[in-house]
């Protein structure tokens, strides 16, 4: 094994972490840090953006550039930075309320651009930081301990929305399978295009339905082995192939989408995690810009020279001014 320059601890800050004891966010945080260490991403190259919520505090605990933005707006902030400097490794994180509720408009429209970044949604089915109201992933009629009455709204299907919107990497993971989650993050970051990881995240404080125990199947003990039968299973262990291989084969494309949708509907007794869909044949937004602006990647907006070193403007508008000259014929 090659020597590793960066240790896991290099990605940790000394900021006091104030999540509730037992919160699934800790596991996700660890997985992100492990993934960074795995990929040996230089600290200064990575930027973690977040929305608002318990999940939104994540960047403060990671020792890379960290931008804790506004409720629901993490994607546009992150996209702005990435497009201004495409050499940044951008990871966006946020809550399910943040991303699928107030942020749903950006969630959908980000799919249209396929910017090369990774979006990790901490899906706990509640609004944590505002004390446990139902989030857009909580299903109709469920009543968590934080709700006075059963949920009056249906839950949405994020995998299917992401597919419909154009995401080119769609995965689900479970917070407490940290190693698998870490793998998903690495795969997502390495994926060329917009990657979504919807992470099933127990919120022990407010959500007493989707608990760690429930995901682990502690309520259903195998009579034979005496062991719990976990609800979560891995797609990759079932020989599921999420990858679109042939860009020209529309049938394959459709089949891959359809199987992802079919899998996204499994819930309850068996909950698949893993990569649902991956398609690297759609050009990322950065390439689309490059096709118009050839030196975009080598001379991106954030790094362009705009003055000559003497505070004089670097841009030359002579040609444009000539067009507007009163005497120009």
């Amino acid at each position: 094994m090659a020597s590793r320059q960066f240790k896991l601890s290099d990605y940790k800050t000394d900021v006091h972490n104030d999540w509730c004891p037992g919160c699934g966010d800790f596991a996700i945080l660890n997985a992100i840090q492990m993934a960074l260490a795995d990929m040996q991403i230089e600290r200064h190259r990575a930027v973690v953006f977040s929305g608002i919520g318990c999940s939104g505090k994540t960047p403060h605990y990671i020792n890379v550039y960290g931008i804790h933005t506004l409720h629901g707006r993490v994607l546009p902030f992150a996209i702005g930075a990435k497009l201004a400097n495409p050499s940044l490794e951008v990871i966006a994180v946020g809550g399910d309320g943040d991303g699928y509720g107030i942020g749903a408009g950006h969630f959908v429209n980000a799919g249209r651009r396929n910017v090369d970044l990774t979006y990790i949604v901490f899906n706990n089915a509640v609004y944590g930081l505002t004390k446990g109201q139902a989030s857009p992933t909580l299903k109709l009629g469920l009543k968590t301990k934080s709700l006075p009455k059963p949920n009056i709204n249906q839950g949405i299907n994020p995998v299917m929305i992401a597919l419909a919107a154009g995401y080119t990497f769609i995965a689900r993971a479970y917070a407490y399978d940290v190693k698998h989650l870490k793998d998903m993050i690495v795969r997502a970051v390495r994926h060329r295009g917009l990657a979504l990881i919807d992470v099933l995240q127990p919120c022990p404080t407010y959500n007493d339905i989707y608990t760690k125990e429930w995901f682990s199947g502690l309520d259903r003990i195998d009579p034979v082995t005496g062991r719990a039968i976990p609800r979560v299973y891995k797609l990759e262990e079932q020989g599921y192939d999420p990858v679109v291989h042939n860009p020209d084969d529309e049938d394959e494309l459709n089949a891959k989408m359809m199987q992802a949708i079919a899998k996204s509907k499994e819930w309850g007794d068996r909950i698949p995690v893993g990569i649902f869909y991956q398609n690297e044949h759609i050009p990322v937004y950065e390439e689309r810009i490059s096709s118009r602006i050839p030196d975009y990647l080598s001379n991106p907006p954030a790094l362009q020279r705009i003055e000559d070193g003497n505070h004089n403007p670097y841009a030359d508008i002579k040609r444009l001014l000539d067009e507007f000259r009163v005497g120009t014929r």
Partner: protein
Amino acid sequence: MEVVNRLNWVTGGPQGSGVDTAANVFAKACALGGLYLFGKREYHSNIKGEHSYFSIHVSDKPVRAHVDPIDMLVVFDLETLFRHALHVVKDGIIVYDSSIEGSIDDVPTLEKRRRDELRSVLARHSLEGTAEGMLKLVEMNGVRLYSIPCHDLLHDIASKRNDPSLSKMVRLINMMMVSASLALLEYDQQLLVDAIRYIFRARKSIADLNVDAALYTYNYTKARYANTDKEDGIGYRLIAREFRDDMLLIQGNQAVALGKIVGGCRFQTYYPITPASDESEFLEANELLDGKGSVVVVQTEDEIAAVAMAIGAGLAGARSSTSTSGPGFSLMVEALGWAGINEVPVVITLYQRAGPSTGLPTRHEQGDLLFAIHAGHGEFPRIVIASGDVEEAFYDAIRAFNYAERYQMPVIHMVDKAIANCVTVCNEFNPALVRIDRGLLLDSVTNATTSTTAEAVVVDGRYSRFRFTGDGISPRIRLGTVGAVFWNTGDEHDELGHITEDPDLRIRMMDKRMGKLDLILKELSYEEQAMVYGYKSDATVISWGSTKGAILDAIDMLKARDGIDMNFVQLRLLHPFPTSRIASLLEETRLLIDVEMNYSAQLAKLLRANLQRDADYHVVKYNGRPMSSSEVYEALKGIVRGSVRSKRVVLRHGV
């Protein structure tokens, strides 16, 4: 008496029918002939069919605004006749397509109220509510009429070019009418040709066709009306002069875009909205800069995303901005505060249009001033500047980025529909006059640690984005800078950028941020804060934004026609408010007249709040049409002459 080289020329027609193109040809022809002009576009929130018109105020001296009375009206549709004919002055001219006919009720786009009005005016003179009646009426008023048989001419052109289909190309008619008007004005025919070729430079065959039609009409008109005696004939003439090559014929939105390019804006986001999107589309069309570089223009899903992306790009180190108008700006307010608390440089170009809500989306107003200053919950620093004309818009667009980076805060650059959509002859923009000031942006931390600012940048081996410094400005680095990381949060934060709820730290951070507003007032030049035009006088007009042109022209008229002296104070920095600069400028002012394009005299409120001095008169306008120099002139004269009773004067001109 013949009026040479001073003319208010107007044409109109259904939207989408080529009115703009025709007017642009006229404007370009004038500009090529060394004339000054101010062109104003008025149009409905509609794609095809509603009435739009263009007025071009031409002169051999600089003109900075439109005027109301029409000298020459060029008519190729019924609605233009009904809407504008009554505003043509005695001895003014109407050139019209002779095929125009029909009654008031044939114009469904004319408001019922206006139809009733017209009918009753005509009836009062025992005339019918028809084109014919209208023409008779204006003739009685002393207007000279010239009819051009466009369809016949078109027919001739078609057979001349051996292409019968051309006789159906009614789109040519507006170009023919422009030519007729220039023929009547005896303007140099070659300049008309050159103007057409310039306007259609991307489509040569269309240019040829238009030139043919134009020349044919020009010659026809000249032949038919040339010998008209000037005494009771055409009272106007345009005579070309040598043009100065350092003048531009340009629109406000283009000026802003050019300013952004020079100013180093390399990332622009927008969501389509009138009248802001023209600027972004211009930038996108010119995304590849000469020499190295480019402007990445991103059309977003909404204005919230637009401002958020611009802020994200600002964090990454790009000079970035977004352009919008009222409804979009309303959606940006939350993120504005985020940029404020995180001291992110970002520029918002706010093209005001008439509100509230969707309002009059293609019309003019300066109704967003107090909103721009107070937009966003809580308190954070921002800079608000406003441009008075197209030329200023260019330089202000650049300054906005300098301010944003120097003071590390959002800058709102206010322009408005009247600037964005006007076309004017102005001095060439000179990038050499401009400096790029990136403030305390460091390219690398390592360099800094070995330089003199070392301690300011790295403390305990850590870079503190929000380091407390003497003047509140902390050294800034880009996301991705080697050897450092930082944090941002919309929460109150410590020097590193981490959340804090500590009450004492909170006070220090508020003081740091808000204190920058005082620094700005200390550092900005007097001219950047406010301009004064004219000599000290005891009568002062005060205003901000695009009313500048009308006010300056009106003040000149007052001086020339009535011997009245006034000076003009133009606020350019609206926030932080340049109290002491304004106080000193107004020291000798006894009569203070506030002029603005809104209902509630918003600037006057700022004067009271900051100077504890009210203007003596509030001249306001809020009918969606910009102020003309003629109506401002009337209002100022009335005030000085004592014929104005109330403190509030409402201007009402405009069609």
